[in-house]
Structure formats: structure tokens, C-alpha cells
């Protein structure tokens, strides 16, 4: 679907898609050609699934967008968390074909919406995809709208922040251009891009000290150490001294790029590429945080968390996710159960936390990682998201 969106917006030209289609035909998967615009890895192409997030940008008449295509498969949820942590809005794609929607609602759709909500994304556009396979049935669309609305409001989304658009990724209906299919004429609402344009951007912490999560580390011609990621707070400019945590190594900004154009400075909310100097690449990994040396972020190996439980919680081993960061840890103790609304302590030292309850958790990590109060953290165990919360 994202591939089609980029094609219709003329970010990707027809020639590239034709080339991809030819390659896809070679291995007998010609329908994947559009997906390959974003799924560039050999593995992703061979297996036909998105594994890692892909970034791409497009412009409309009023706004510049960066899209992150995030994987949905349960094994690659860590990558999806990385994607969601960088996002302002989410487009939740739902397969409307018979059977697929029902099985998705029980499985991945639920986890995805929980995750985007707990990563702080409040605006969701639900793209009801593959409506062409059910001949643009309005009943089907209404049924899905009804079920998903109920389910999203239960997750904590406000109904006014959720909108639905019937689309077809394969043919491109209602993505950029309005559907020309007569069967779909009942839908007169905005297209996906129009919905995106009308979304209000969130306010950013421009004056706070610099924090930037590294989502990718690679090598370019400009610098042997190039990192990319989204500035969470603060700003930076060329020549700035930076501190990379947890290694605690200093680096300098040699140059920086925004949307593939060299720029002098960048502020919170922007996805930038930094070329660093005076640092050995072994000190930098994806998931690290770049911060202001004067006000560095601390590296912690134990912290407390006010968390909403999605599953039973007890002292147990969990994977701790924060953006790209992915670390092994344990719930050491559960100091208190909290009231959902007021946050007051309702029970001290519970034996177990039930789903949908709010609790304070003490977490111990296997190694020190950069964390600070107010950050959103997701806990997973055995391949399932068990809790999400705010660092205290």
C-alpha cells in the first residue's frame, strides 16, 4: 500500500516500479512489486514480508511528510516499536478480505493498536484495505468501522482522533486520487493524503536539552560514522559537540542532512542524518541516545515504571523496549497497584497484576542503558506485549 502511495505521489517513478515488477516476476511474485519499493532487503523480498522499518518522504501542496513503513509480523514487533516511537500519526492498515479481518482483529491488529497508543501516538487513520476483493461493499466497510472503533476507543483512543478510509492498495483507490470505481462511489470522504494533511501536528519540546535516539548507524562517503534518527527534544547545529550514551563518548557534528539536503541546523521532530567525527564507530549502536554534553541523559540499570498491564504481570523476565533500544531485564518487584484515574495506591505489594490494571513496577536491566523520566517503555515477554508505561 505504501508503495502505491509513493507511486501515485510521484516519489517513485513508473520506471522503478516496472523494474521491480520484472525482478519480482523472476521469482514468480509479480504482485509484490509495489511492496518492494520499501522492502529493499534481500530477505524481505525473498520471503515477502516487511522485516524492518523503511523511511521515505513525500510532499503534498501544504506539508512535508516522512513515512515509516513498519512491519506487522509478530516476530518483528521490536522493529515496529522502533517505528512507532518516531511517529506523529499512524495509519493502521486493515485487511478487509473475508476471514482476514476477523483473524487480524484477534491477533496482530490488537497488539499494534495497543503499541501505537502506548508509544504516545494519538491520531490514527484506519485504512480499510483490499475492499476491491469484496467488490467495494459498503456493509463490509461499515461493519469493520463499527468493530474497530469500539476496539480503538477501548484501547484509549478518542473517537475524534480516529478516521476511516476505504482503500485499495493494489489499484490505488482513495490513497491520493479518489476512487474511479463506480462501486465505490458511496464514499465521498477525504482520501488518505487529505486525511494526513488535515491532521494537526503535535507540539514539540524545542527548548529542552537535546535528545536524539539513533535508529540507524551506517557508513557514508562523508563520514565513516553516519547516524540517523529523530530528534526527540532540543535542537542541534553543525559543529556541535555531542555525547553518545551509554558509551559516554564525545563526538562532533561534521555536517547534517535533512531530507537528503544538507542543512545547518535541525530541531525536535525532524528526522535527520548526522555525519559525526572524532568518535570510533564501535562506541555507537542503534538504540543509543545522542544528547547535550552539558545536560547528559543518565544510564540506568534499574528504574520504576508506572505501567498499564495487558497481560498478567508477576516478577518475571521481560524484554524492555524503548524505540530502537531493546534490552533484557526482569520485573524485580511490584511495589504497588495504582488507581487507574487518580494514581493513588490501592494495594501494596500485590502478588500478581491482572490485565488492564495499572501498577508501579521495579525493573532491573541486564546492562545500563540511557533512560530518563517521562519516557515511554514497552515490556514484552514470550513474543507478546505484556505492559506499557511511563518511566518515573
Amino acid at each position, binding site marked *: 500500500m505504501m508503495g502505491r502511495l509513493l507511486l501515485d505521489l510521484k516519489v517513485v517513478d513508473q520506471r522503478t516500479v516496472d523494474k521491480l515488477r520484472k525482478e519480482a516476476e523472476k521469482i514468480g511474485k509479480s504482485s509484490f512489486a509495489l511492496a518492494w519499493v520499501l522492502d529493499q532487503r*534481500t*530477505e524481505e523480498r525473498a520471503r515477502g514480508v516487511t522485516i524492518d522499518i523503511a523511511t521515505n518522504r513525500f510532499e503534498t501542496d501544504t506539508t512535508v511528510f516522512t513515512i515509516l513503513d513498519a512491519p506487522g509480523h509478530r516476530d518483528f514487533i521490536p522493529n515496529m516499536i522502533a517505528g512507532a516511537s518516531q511517529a506523529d500519526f499512524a495509519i493502521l492498515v486493515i485487511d478487509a478480505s473475508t476471514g482476514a479481518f476477523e483473524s487480524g482483529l484477534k491477533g496482530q491488529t490488537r497488539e499494534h493498536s495497543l503499541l501505537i497508543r502506548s508509544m504516545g501516538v494519538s491520531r490514527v487513520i484506519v485504512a480499510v484495505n483490499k475492499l476491491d476483493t469484496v467488490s467495494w461493499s459498503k456493509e463490509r466497510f461499515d461493519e469493520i468501522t463499527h468493530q474497530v472503533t469500539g476496539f480503538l476507543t477501548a484501547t484509549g483512543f478518542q473517537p475524534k482522533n480516529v478516521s476511516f478510509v476505504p482503500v485499495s492498495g493494489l489499484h490505488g483507490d482513495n490513497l491520493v486520487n479518489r476512487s474511479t470505481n463506480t462501486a465505490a462511489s458511496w464514499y465521498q470522504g477525504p482520501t488518505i493524503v487529505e486525511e494526513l494533511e488535515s491532521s494537526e501536528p503535535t507540539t514539540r519540546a524545542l527548548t529542552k536539552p537535546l535528545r536524539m535516539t539513533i535508529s540507524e548507524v*551506517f*557508513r557514508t562517503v562523508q563520514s565513516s560514522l553516519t547516524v540517523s534518527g529523530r530528534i526527540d527534544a532540543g535542537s542541534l547545529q553543525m559543529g556541535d559537540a555531542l555525547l553518545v550514551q551509554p558509551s559516554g563518548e564525545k563526538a562532533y557534528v561534521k555536517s547534517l542532512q535533512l531530507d537528503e539536503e544538507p542543512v545547518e541546523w535541525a530541531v525536535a521532530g525532524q528526522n535527520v542524518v548526522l555525519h559525526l567525527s572524532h568518535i570510533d564507530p564501535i562506541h555507537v549502536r542503534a538504540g543509543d541516545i545522542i544528547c547535550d554534553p552539558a545536560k547528559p541523559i543518565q544510564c540506568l540499570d534499574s528504574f520504576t515504571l508506572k505501567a498499564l498491564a495487558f497481560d498478567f504481570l508477576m516478577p*518475571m*523476565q521481560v524484554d524492555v523496549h524503548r524505540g530502537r533500544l531493546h534490552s*533484557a531485564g526482569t520485573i524485580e518487584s511490584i511495589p504497588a497497584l495504582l488507581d487507574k484515574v487518580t494514581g493513588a495506591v490501592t494495594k501494596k505489594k500485590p502478588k500478581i497484576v491482572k490485565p488492564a490494571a495499572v501498577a508501579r513496577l521495579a525493573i532491573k536491566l541486564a546492562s545500563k542503558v540511557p533512560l530518563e523520566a517521562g519516557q515511554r517503555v514497552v515490556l514484552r515477554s514470550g*513474543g507478546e506485549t505484556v505492559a506499557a508505561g511511563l518511566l518515573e
Partner: protein
Amino acid sequence: MRLAGSKKVIADLLDLGGTEEDIVSLLPEEPEDMWHANNLIAPDDIIRAHAIRKVTRTTNTGSTSSERVHTDLTIRVTSTFFDPAASALHVSGTVVKENGYVAIGQYHTLDLELNRAFTLLKPGGWDSVARETLQEALRPESGDDLAAVVMQEGLANICVITEFRTVLKQRVEHNIPKKRSGASDMDSATKAFFDKVLNTLLRAVEFDAAHPRTLLLASPGFVATEFRKYILDLGQRTSDKKLIGLAKASMVVHTSSGHVHALNEVLKSPEVQTKMKDKKFYGETRLMDDFYTRLRKDDGRAWYGLKPVVRAVNEGAIGPGGGTLLINNSLFRNMDVATRKQYVDLVDKVKAAGGEARVLSSDHESGQRLDALGGIAAILSYPSYDLDEDPEDEEDGENGGGNDTAEGTTVI
């Protein structure tokens, strides 16, 4: 580990207290035996073993000369240190029997060695848990242990799973660029990562006829499958029979992450279960799973933490009909005698009541899960819901002031 009786040594130690029955001479033969020895040797025990000590002599003229001497030393243990990766055990303590080189009261750290006997005297006698540990140590090695690589993109943990413990041999990290920098970059980085993992694996774990091992490759997604293919391809390209055999004998298991604690999922997978049914740790993993399921259901039969478990034991709630006490062996290790005795009493009481008492190895995944629960847990024979509301809590309330009771009333 073998018993190595030496009458002379035993006779020599008798004057330090205890009877002939309290003295055992043991001969460690395999690295695993060092782990057993670490579980056996507790503070205040007396141990006699071969030692190398640097002795400094001062002559009449004031010049000094030092030399290293081989001697047998007898010490009273103050602490032990076990290095799991090297399987080396260091026992520190004070000398209790002097000889030509050392005086009583001097400190020495013995490095226990393979194939050299040591003699252990427990002046207070051997309790039931210690006896069991000894029996386990003397049981002949079942032989085949498992090698496992738990991996995800850019991270691999190489472990060896033996009957009693899981040893993390090596952690391999490699930076793999993400996709924006082009697919070819990424492929070569993945190859370099696999290369690094394979080399580390071959260095860290022995794979030869003398050590037949099953290799488990576990990962989310396709990393493990790709890695297996990589080994096979490399083996075929270089016509290396060893690599081909390794790849063919390996099993790919799905896990949700590449961290060590995902080993749980490995041990639970059907592929491994059929192979491992007779292993001790298999039963332990199952017991822990059972415990967690009960805790989730909140059926009142699963309790963890020292206080509730002690109460359950005193009530006789861990008896016949599925009552099981789960306790980590780390609780018996390196602790003062009184605390240890308390835990041993718990085990004895459960056994007397007809329940099952399982001492879990804290160096296994199941033991580490138990560790998270405080090292002690129990499945009761019958539901009981008020084990945590014990009188001690009220005492805490009094100490902490009226705050607690005020909160208590609002809830009710």
C-alpha cells in the same frame, strides 16, 4: 566426580571436629564437577587440597628470597568464588593446620584443580540437602549436552546447556546497517555477522566425536534459518565435512527474541522436548510453567516469596497430591549456617509431609525465572488465599505509622 578415599588424610583431619562420616574425599574429573563442588562447599567447612603458595624467607643478613612451593593446605572456608565461563573454583579461608610454610590463621585461596583430589569436612555434619547435592555430583555424567545459539539480527548468545546449568559462553554483537543504506551493504554485514558468530561458536564450544552435541539455533524471524544455511553453504563450498555435519545435525527453533532468557522458549519447543525428555532441566522448566499458569489463574495454589511459603510449609499445605516446593540452590550457597539451616528445615518438612521438594539449579533458565520470584516458590496441595495477609504485615503497619491503616480503610 569420584570418591577418592584416603585413610591418612581422614585420620589427619579428625581432630578438627566431626566424625569420620563427615569427611569426604572427592576427585573432580570434569569442568562440571567444579560447579558441584561450589554447591557443596559452604562457609565454615574445612577443606584440604593441593596448593601453590609463595613463601618469602628472610635470611639472617636481611636479604629475602621467595619461592613457590607445592604443598597441601587445610583451610576453614570463608568464601568461595566460581567463575562459570572457565569452570574454575577458588576457595578462600584461613589455615587451620600449620606446616613448614604457613602458620595457623594465615589466609589462603585454594584454586581447586581437575584430577586432583580434595577433602571436605563439614564439622556440623551433612544435612539432607548437602547429601543430595553430593549424590548428584557423584552420579555419572549423562554425556551429551546441548549447544545453543540464541540470536537476532546483530546479536547472538552462545550457550552450552548441561544437565545442571546453562553457561553463556560468549555474546556476539555486530552492527548491521538498516536498509536505507542499500541492500548490498546489509547483505555483506549480515555475512560478516554470521562469520563472526560461527567462528566464535567453534572456538567456544567443542564439536568433535568426543563431544557429540546437538546444536540449537534459535531466533525470531528467519535469522536462525539463514545462519544454518550459511553454515551449510560454507561447509559445501570449502568441502568441510565438520561444518556440513554440524549444519545437518542442528535444529532451528523459533523464539520471540535473541536474549538469553528466550532459551525458555527453546526448551519448551516440541523439537527439543522429544530429545530432552529425560533431562533434569526439562522437568524443571515444566514445573515453572505449571507454577506460572497457576499464578495466572490465581487458583490459590501458587505462592512465591519466603514468608508465604514458610507459612504454607508450617500449615502442611505442601503435602501429597501435587504439593511441590521449588527452591533455588543459590539459597543454600554461601550463606551463614543459621539461614541455611532454615532452608534445609523447609525442605525436610515438605518431604516429611509427603510433598515434593525440588532444588532447582539457579544457573538454568528455570532457576533464573525462580530467582526473579525470590528464589523460592511453592505449589500447594490445596488452595489457600490468605498466606500473604500474615500478622507481620500488621506489625509493619504499626512501625510505619497510621498511614497504612488509613489506606486500608479506604479500600474496604
